[in-house]
């Protein structure tokens, strides 16, 4: 047991003991599950005499989370031992993850499923704490609604969210992303081909990337109208430059020997490009694609703050916040976060397939 694990176990058990003592003043049948958790948590201190498996800590954490969530509103006002139980449950979850990551460390690749458990435990812990604090602590809804309320809002407004998702993500983001990245790539090849363009276009691209998006978005609305094309245009402006710079850098990533080799074969420009320089630029290009996947979403949502038809994620966020429907704002944020993560994840998967040979991917 490491020093950290020792203290986590000690504090978690100790907290349970103290909370259990405090809870004895309330009627016995009130919050029975919470008291059972506290008692078991107190008993976990026997680990200093009899070793407990790491799954026991996982079970304590799950029991603690369920007990805390069911005990919300049972006691009024919320007593100190409730908060102590929440902290204890959190400490058990921490201890569990700590022991799990230590146990997995040698062969993380072979335990992909268990490795996935760590971020899941982490995320669930945050959600439980968020739920308990906002509801038991009576946090005003406008400041932070509990996750359960956001989830209820998501399930109740699927058609609206879906329409917004289509408008913003499937149209503005994806089309703008494809155009912006494609344009950046093509211009990078042109620049590579001609020194004149290198001195002319690269500073211009730099200039375009420095344009403040908040200032450009209204102009794009004037140019391309209220619907998604103006948002796609903003996305193009945001994604163009990272792609350009990364591709230009990537095209120069092949070593002198590798290029000399092509020269000894009397290979032409396009042969050298296709067989050497583009594959060598792969890691750079995928970096740009990853950066741009998040930039595109931000750009499209912010662009919708400046004139839009009555649909779209950015439109919904800006209007619902004005109507104090904060749960709807959070619902849109959740959709955007999930969509952005999946988008990013898909690109990472493609990257692993294409640049499998790169040391950063093959883990050498």
């Amino acid at each position: 047991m490491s020093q950290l694990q020792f203290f986590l176990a000690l504090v978690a058990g100790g907290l349970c003991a103290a909370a259990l003592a405090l809870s004895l003043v309330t009627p016995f049948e009130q919050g029975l599950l919470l008291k059972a958790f506290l008692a078991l948590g107190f008993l976990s201190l026997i680990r200093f005499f009899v070793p407990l498996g790491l799954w026991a800590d996982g079970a304590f954490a799950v029991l603690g989370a369920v007990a805390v969530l069911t005990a919300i509103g049972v006691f009024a006002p919320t007593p100190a031992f409730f908060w102590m139980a929440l902290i204890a449950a959190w400490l058990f979850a921490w201890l569990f993850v700590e022991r799990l990551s230590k146990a997995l460390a040698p062969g993380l690749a072979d335990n992909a499923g268990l490795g996935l458990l760590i971020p899941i435990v982490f995320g669930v812990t945050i959600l439980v704490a968020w739920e308990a604090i906002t509801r038991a602590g009576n946090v005003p809804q406008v400041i932070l609604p509990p996750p359960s309320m956001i989830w209820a809002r998501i399930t109740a407004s699927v058609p609206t969210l879906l329409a917004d998702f289509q408008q913003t993500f499937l149209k503005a983001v994806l089309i703008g992303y494809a155009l912006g990245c494609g344009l950046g790539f093509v211009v990078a090849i042109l620049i590579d081909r001609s020194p004149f363009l290198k001195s002319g276009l690269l500073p211009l691209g730099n200039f375009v990337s420095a344009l403040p998006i908040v200032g450009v978005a209204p102009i794009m609305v004037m140019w391309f109208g209220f619907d998604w094309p103006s948002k796609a245009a903003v996305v193009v402006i945001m994604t163009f430059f990272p792609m350009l710079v990364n591709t230009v850098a990537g095209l120069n990533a092949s070593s002198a020997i590798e290029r000399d080799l092509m020269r000894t074969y009397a290979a032409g420009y396009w042969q050298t490009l296709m067989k050497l320089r583009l594959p060598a630029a792969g890691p750079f290009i995928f970096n740009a694609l990853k950066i741009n996947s998040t930039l595109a979403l931000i750009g499209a949502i912010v662009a919708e703050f400046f004139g839009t038809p009555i649909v779209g994620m950015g439109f919904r966020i800006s209007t619902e916040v004005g109507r104090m429907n904060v749960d709807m704002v959070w619902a849109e944020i959740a959709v955007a976060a999930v969509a952005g993560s999946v988008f990013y994840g898909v690109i990472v998967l493609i990257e692993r397939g294409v640049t499998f040979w790169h040391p950063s991917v093959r883990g050498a």
Partner: protein
Amino acid sequence: MSAVVSAQNLGLTFRTNDGDVVALSDVNLTIEKGEFVSFIGPSGCGKTTFLRTIADLEQPTSGTLDINGQTPEQARKARAYGYVFQAPALYPWRTIEKNVALPLEIMGYTSAQQAERVKRTMDLVNLAGFEKKYPWQLSGGMQQRASIARALAFDADLLLMDEPFGALDEIVRDHLNSELLKLWERTQKTICFVTHSIPEAVYLSTKIVVMSPRPGRVTDIIESDLPRARPLDIRESPEFLAIAARVRDGLRAGHSYEEAV
């Protein structure tokens, strides 16, 4: 016999920010077909530069250089030589067989021809069975063998090798040296081989060109009369040691010039 490489009064000066650097000065050399020529000398003596000039990777600033009676550029465009670099320079996104097939793809061979030549050259360098591996899955010696296979794949008559075994340990190096001799014996190619190892140069060559630095120039050309069939223990024979001594004398002569500066 016809001259494969013929240099007259060849000179090459690099222009740098610190002034001109004379890399080659007044080099005269003729290499006949089927010869195995080693270039030996301390670093900075221009042996690699001379090889690169033959390959048209550097342009001479004075004198003339003919490859098969053509200019180096014409020879390069005619794919007259295969070049083996100091590092294997295999492309990591290609399997070994795809790496060997790279020049064939560029030169427009059909896929049937490619398959046949890849198999033949992989057998020649004893790499059969590793076709589907990626370069980073192979040892340094195997990678360098693959790069030799790649240089042989399109059957150029001239093979230029720039310290191909410099980064390998001595055991692997001895092994690859004797394999290289057998390969030369079988293919009848003309080989130019840059090294800074005296035993390697004497063991491999029919002709040894001793060079010295500042400015890079040829100080001695030694014709070796060792038999073509050379077991590794020929390196203990008196004839071998006599040639090695002469190479060493040539190198020392170059160095005394350096110390006088």
